[in-house]
């Protein structure tokens, strides 16, 4: 009798607990999870969005692998890694080494200022930089002319060989403060005694960076690496606002190509196949990071 009441109560407990999760799960299931699964399904179909879809098997994927614009877009995403990931992390590491363990006055002011672009809408960042790069009254060409380097002025975003680095510079500008904030949080957790020991052993500042600071912020480095990698693979807002993929397809990226296929060319199945490929790359990177982090705990 007692156990019956007890198990009845336990059953009630579980029911009530499920009710706490149910609202969030319902929204998530209908508006996120089902669409994720449907993307996979659509990617095997030929579908304009209006007429009924026809099954195409792996046709979309086969076409993608031979589509010069998609391959170019994907290569551009990989090239963006240099600007989204490599430069910001190296720059942030140098600054971390300079700032770490020094009670420089105004350290937090600098950190706050460097972090500022990261919280701005990418659309605003793009609008601001479009003006900087404006060939006629832009800040960059204006400055070049003012210091007598007028010969170097360029239509930066319209130049076939310069558009990609020009967008890349914006990415560095927007990303490095985020990496710096992560690293500085990590440095605060490093035991001061490690630096003292290194100094006793005669380690230079550079040695301390390599042997104490970098191993001490391994987790933060990994998070910075993964989130900037993902940002490079997902680049969209910035490209859309500054160049729309141009000139030609010099700054075309996969998400923009997905958007064009889905909502301008009405190729839903094809766009879904792009989404699947991109998602698999991103999930692989996230999964590798989670595995690495949990294996060390």
């Amino acid at each position, binding site marked *: 009798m007692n156990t019956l009441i007890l198990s009845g109560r336990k059953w009630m407990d579980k029911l009530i607990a499920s009710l706490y999760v149910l*609202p969030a799960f319902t929204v998530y299931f209908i508006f996120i999870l089902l669409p994720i699964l449907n993307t996979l399904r659509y990617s095997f179909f030929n579908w304009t969005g209006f007429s009924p879809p026809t099954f195409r098997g792996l046709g979309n994927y086969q076409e993608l692998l031979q589509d010069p614009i998609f391959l170019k877009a994907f290569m551009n995403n990989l090239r963006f890694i240099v600007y989204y990931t490599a430069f910001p992390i190296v720059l942030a590491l140098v600054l971390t080494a300079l700032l770490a363990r020094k009670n420089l006055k105004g350290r937090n002011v600098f950190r706050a200022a460097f972090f500022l*672009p990261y*919280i701005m809408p990418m*659309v605003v960042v793009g609008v*601001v930089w479009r003006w900087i790069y404006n060939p006629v009254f832009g800040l960059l060409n204006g*400055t070049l002319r003012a210091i007598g380097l007028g010969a170097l002025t360029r239509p930066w975003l319209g130049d076939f060989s310069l558009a990609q680095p020009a967008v890349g510079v914006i990415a560095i500008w927007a990303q490095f403060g*985020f990496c710096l904030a992560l690293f500085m949080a990590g440095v605060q957790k490093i035991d001061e005694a490690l630096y003292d020991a290194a100094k006793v052993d005669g380690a230079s500042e550079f040695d301390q960076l390599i042997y104490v600071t970098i191993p001490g912020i391994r987790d933060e480095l990994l998070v910075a690496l993964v989130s900037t990698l993902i940002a490079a693979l997902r680049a969209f807002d910035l490209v859309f606002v500054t160049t729309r993929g141009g000139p030609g397809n010099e700054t075309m990226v996969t998400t923009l190509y997905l958007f064009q296929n889905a909502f301008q060319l009405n190729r839903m199945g094809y766009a879904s196949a792009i989404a699947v490929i991109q998602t698999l790359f991103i999930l692989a990177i996230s*999964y590798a990071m989670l595995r690495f982090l949990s294996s060390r705990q």
Partner: protein
Amino acid sequence: MTRHRKPIDMKNLFTYLLLAVLMLMIVAPFFSVFLASFKTPAELVRGAFSLPENFSWDNYRAAWEQGHFRVYTLNSTLVVFWVIVLGSFLSILAGYAFAQMRFPLDKALFIVFLLGLMVPQESYIVPLYYFLSKIGLVNTIYALIIPQVGMSVCFGIFWMRGFFAQFPRDLLDAAEIDGCNRWSILWRIIVPNSIPAITTMVVLFFVWTWNDFFLALVMISSDSLRTLPLGLALFQGRWAANIPLVAAGATLVTLPSLFIYVFLQRQFILGATSGSLHGS
């Protein structure tokens, strides 16, 4: 003593110089846009940092009324408000259950939510668009609110569960014996003691929703439903030649974020660095 100190000062001087140059590179573009927003097109040609003759609000007035930034601001505010309210409420409820209760499939469900944290928005935008269009929600404000809530709870649950798990079960058991039920334990004990964590979550929801461009670009076709980033992006295309007007629009989009950032800077940095794997 002085001989010993001098080289250190020199080194700090170099560090300060480098930091100052970098800071100038970050702040100068924003500052020049802010200045430009008060200029006439003729004044603009005189140089990026030249001061306007008189600080007139004409560009702001034009952007606000003719440029429809009044409508965009209203839409953005409405979307952000509902995402924060609904997203936080659902995250707190579910986070509490995952942290303090046992129920069937709890571990599996948690992993399913984690998946939503890692999958980027663009990977499900096509089916989402067709689903919302089928139920008549495309090109309505709900097409911006509901999916954003769905994305936000993935992070919110993960975040709140981590924080709520720190509450000792003993304390909650004691409260339960005293006659509090779970609902009142959550709202009377747990939530009032979790304000910093909730603030960080709210700040993140704000940034993600306020800055969102992709979802609005796909879902919204009427001018009267555009949010600020979408409005600005299309505005700058239409008024490309009138930079002061675009600068005023850009300033209007930036100011609320900047205002909150100044007051909640710590939450911003803490939140963004710990929420950095969110998919939106």
